[in-house]
């Protein structure tokens, strides 16, 4: 049975950096309810990361993600000077020195990924949706996090991908393959929207049109959350949803602002920010001794 919601897990490291020559080596482990990432930063630069599905156990997922990030680098856990846990499972990262919320970590990570001009970050994770405002240093100035309702989260999108039997990576592209943009589905609630979508399919709507209607509703919902916190340019999108142009392009149209183009995998923003927090804390610790 094909699992349409399953996206590819992967790892990467920078061949041009030699970890043995690094002074400050830190890691951030972001254990979300759906995905987990481990990110390694050496002397302020991103060195390696892994991105995988969170298993049934947070501590095990954290360990697996960390090991996988180090695979092929010759590094061992002893090389890590400071480890920060973040995300939903942050208190369950057994080898972390400290836990920091994903809000602060995403702001910091976005600041690295997009530069000091980024002021508003939209992150749609597996089971939450956050809007974070930050300053030029990546410090949070405002935030709203919605993890109560599946609408506007990766999970909500997965439900639809499954209903329509469309691989999650293709949802964005397919949602634009329509003759004209349909009206959005009227229910915000994923459960009710799913019934609505079933009805539309039965009445003859092609899959792509239903996808378009749902992406449109999700985009609008996210825009109202953005407006609650206020949007200041530059604007960037992180998290898995950044890869879904079906939602991103529609929300850009609605707010009239284009998101900064991603330069790195958008799902590592939290783990990256955590590792960067670790850099500062490790520096303090070493200079205090």
């Amino acid at each position, binding site marked *: 049975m094909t699992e349409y919601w399953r996206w590819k897990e992967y790892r990467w490291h920078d061949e041009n950096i030699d970890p043995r020559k690094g002074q400050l080596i830190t890691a951030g482990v972001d254990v979300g309810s759906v995905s987990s990432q481990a990110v390694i930063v050496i002397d302020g630069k991103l060195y390696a990361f892994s991105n995988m599905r969170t298993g049934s156990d947070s501590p095990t997922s954290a360990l697996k993600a960390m090991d996988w990030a180090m695979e092929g680098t010759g590094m061992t856990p002893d090389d890590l000077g400071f480890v920060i846990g973040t995300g939903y499972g942050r208190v369950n990262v057994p080898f972390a020195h400290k836990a*920091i*919320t994903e*809000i*602060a970590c995403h702001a910091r990570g976005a600041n690295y990924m997009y530069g000091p001009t980024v002021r508003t970050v939209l992150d749609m994770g597996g089971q939450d949706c956050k809007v974070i*405002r930050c300053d030029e240093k990546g*410090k*949070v*100035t*405002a*935030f*709203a*996090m*919605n*993890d*109560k*309702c599946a*609408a*506007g989260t990766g999970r909500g999108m997965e439900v639809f991908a499954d209903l329509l039997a469309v691989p999650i990576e293709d949802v964005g592209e397919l949602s634009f393959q329509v003759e004209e943009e349909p009206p959005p589905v009227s*229910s*915000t*609630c994923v459960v*009710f929207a799913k019934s609505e979508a079933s009805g539309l399919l039965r009445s003859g709507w092609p899959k792509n049109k239903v996808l378009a209607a749902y992406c449109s509703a999700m985009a609008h*919902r996210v825009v*109202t*959350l953005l407006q*609650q*916190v206020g949007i200041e340019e530059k604007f960037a999108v992180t998290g898995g949803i950044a890869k879904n142009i079906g939602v991103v392009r529609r929300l850009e149209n609605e707010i009239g602002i284009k998101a900064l183009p991603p330069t790195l995998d958008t799902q590592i923003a939290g783990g990256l920010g955590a590792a960067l927090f670790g850099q500062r804390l490790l520096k303090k610790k070493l200079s205090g001794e």
Partner: protein
Amino acid sequence: MKAHYGYKDGAGDFFVTIDTDMCIECKSYPCVPACPEGVLEVIVDDYEDEVAAVAMVHRKKIKYSCAPCKPGLNRPPLPCVTACGFDAIAHSW
């Protein structure tokens, strides 16, 4: 920092917003005992400041937690908002 605690679902937007820059000035947190439902608490945030926040257990059901202070008719001023001397608390509904 303006912290918006709560959620948005099919029924609407339910956020309690706390301007934590004011908490740093206030330092006494009268809002916490003022709430009859124990929704607010003092936490140390990610930047090591002691600020007021909506307790974790209430964040996903804030509409229900705040319901006793929000009857359908003749709504009195909210105790948390009144107790705060810095105008730092706002409700979106």
